[in-house]
């Protein structure tokens, strides 16, 4: 996340690291770069050890060449990588990833579009489902003539249309219903003779499928009935229990006193209340322990401002980390690296890096702290 650090914020960070006051550090940093600007007017080059070289041309254009050590520190995340030699068989086309990506996308689109022209699996599914509804209605009235006709139905076509083997088997049973109505059978004299032997075996298969269908419906009905029974009965019981309790209470009120048997309910209720209280107490304790556990700790590496930047998104909120850790940190300007500090909750101090008022409040507090120090 790019964030522009102002010189005042930078001076505050430098003050905490160096031990000088923030005002002095701000003046020093301003003077540091003013000296460079003045020196560039006198001589065209100014080199600062550890930072780099500033050079100016006649037109006033200033160029900065960072010191190798400075550049290496900034490039620390990628410092471990080294240039890798490429094999000769790797061509530029293979490595131009951007163009390759486009090609891949185009190729994928082609692949996706092509099958859409031919009947897809989803089309087959809907086709099969539609027919199944019809077939269930007609199977009971299935005349024997149609059965003999449907045996001639071209299985090869159904196998071609159905892309999955399971669908093919479904189509066998479902297509039969429609084929005898819509399709005019071609003249298959030769084929009839060849298939005539199979016609004798087919009704038996058909009966088996019918029996399987009937059994399936019966099992489904039994399961459905059982499920509805289970779903309804507890509610009925609870309703009856409530009714009984109400009746008992009414009777007790009429008698003017609660019978000694009645405390069965009260006895049953009291532990519930007690347990409810206990569970509430446990919950609050659990919340407290969770809150205790949710306290974030971190270790100071350089300054509190860096921690503030890391956790709150801005350097200015270091004051709240200091406030939270006054017992550990005696001087916020000189925090030993490796000090373990508690990171305060964002809501506790109303910390919001996007809110200018929140940042101003933190700045005011930091000025107060630096004023106390003086």
């Amino acid at each position, binding site marked *: 996340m790019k964030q522009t650090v102002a010189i005042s914020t930078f001076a505050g960070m430098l003050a905490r690291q160096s031990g000088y006051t923030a005002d002095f550090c701000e003046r*020093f940093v301003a003077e540091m770069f003013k000296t460079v600007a003045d020196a560039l007017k006198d001589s065209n080059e100014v080199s600062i050890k550890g930072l780099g070289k500033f050079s100016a041309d006649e037109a006033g254009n*200033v160029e900065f060449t960072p010191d190798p050590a400075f550049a290496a520190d900034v490039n620390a995340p990628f410092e471990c990588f080294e240039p890798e030699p490429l094999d000769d068989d790797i061509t530029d086309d293979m490595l131009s990833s951007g163009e390759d990506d486009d090609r891949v996308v185009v190729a994928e689109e082609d692949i996706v579009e092509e099958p859409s022209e031919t009947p897809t699996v989803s089309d087959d599914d809907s086709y099969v489902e539609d027919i199944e509804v019809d077939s269930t209605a007609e199977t009971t009235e299935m005349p024997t003539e149609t059965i003999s006709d449907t045996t001639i139905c071209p299985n090869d076509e159904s196998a071609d249309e159905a892309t999955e083997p399971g669908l093919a088997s479904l189509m066998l049973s479902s297509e039969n219903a429609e084929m005898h109505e819509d399709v005019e059978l071609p003249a298959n004299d030769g084929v009839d003779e060849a298939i005539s032997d199979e016609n004798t075996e087919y009704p038996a298969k058909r009966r088996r499928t019918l029996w399987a269908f009937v059994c399936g419906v019966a099992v489904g009905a039994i399961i459905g009935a059982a499920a509805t029974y289970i779903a309804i009965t507890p509610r009925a019981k609870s309703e009856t229990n409530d009714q009984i309790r109400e009746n008992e209470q009414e009777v007790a009120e009429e008698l003017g006193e609660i019978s000694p048997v009645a405390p069965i309910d009260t006895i049953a209720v009291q532990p519930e209340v007690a347990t409810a209280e206990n569970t509430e107490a446990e919950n609050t304790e659990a919340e407290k322990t969770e809150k205790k556990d949710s306290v974030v700790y971190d270790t100071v590496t350089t300054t509190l401002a*860096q921690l503030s930047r890391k956790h709150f998104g801005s350097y200015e909120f270091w004051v709240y980390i200091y406030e939270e850790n006054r017992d550990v940190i005696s001087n916020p300007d000189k925090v030993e690296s490796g000090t373990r500090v508690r990171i305060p909750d964002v809501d506790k101090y109303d910390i919001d890096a996007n809110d200018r008022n929140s940042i101003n409040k933190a700045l005011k507090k930091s000025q107060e702290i630096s004023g106390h120090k003086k």
Partner: protein
Amino acid sequence: MDNKQYITRLSRRATLNYKETQQLVASAISMITEVLSQDDMLAIPAFGTFGTEKRDEYIGVDEKSGQRMLFPPTITVKFTPGTILTKSIGNQQ
């Protein structure tokens, strides 16, 4: 102007001795490094802005061996001079 001359001139301006100035400049540079390593920018009024620029990995040819190499990504320091600085140097020269 080399580093020694620069520190001497700065120490006179900041009313510090040479060693203190040297230490404070080193601290300031380490803080600049920290700010830039967070991918942030440092704006110095009337001077310019220090920032970073990430360059993606690229293919280049090693000048010595002539072999094609895959160079890793890098983060480089980028300095943008301010208008006041550019104008003041341009007018002076």
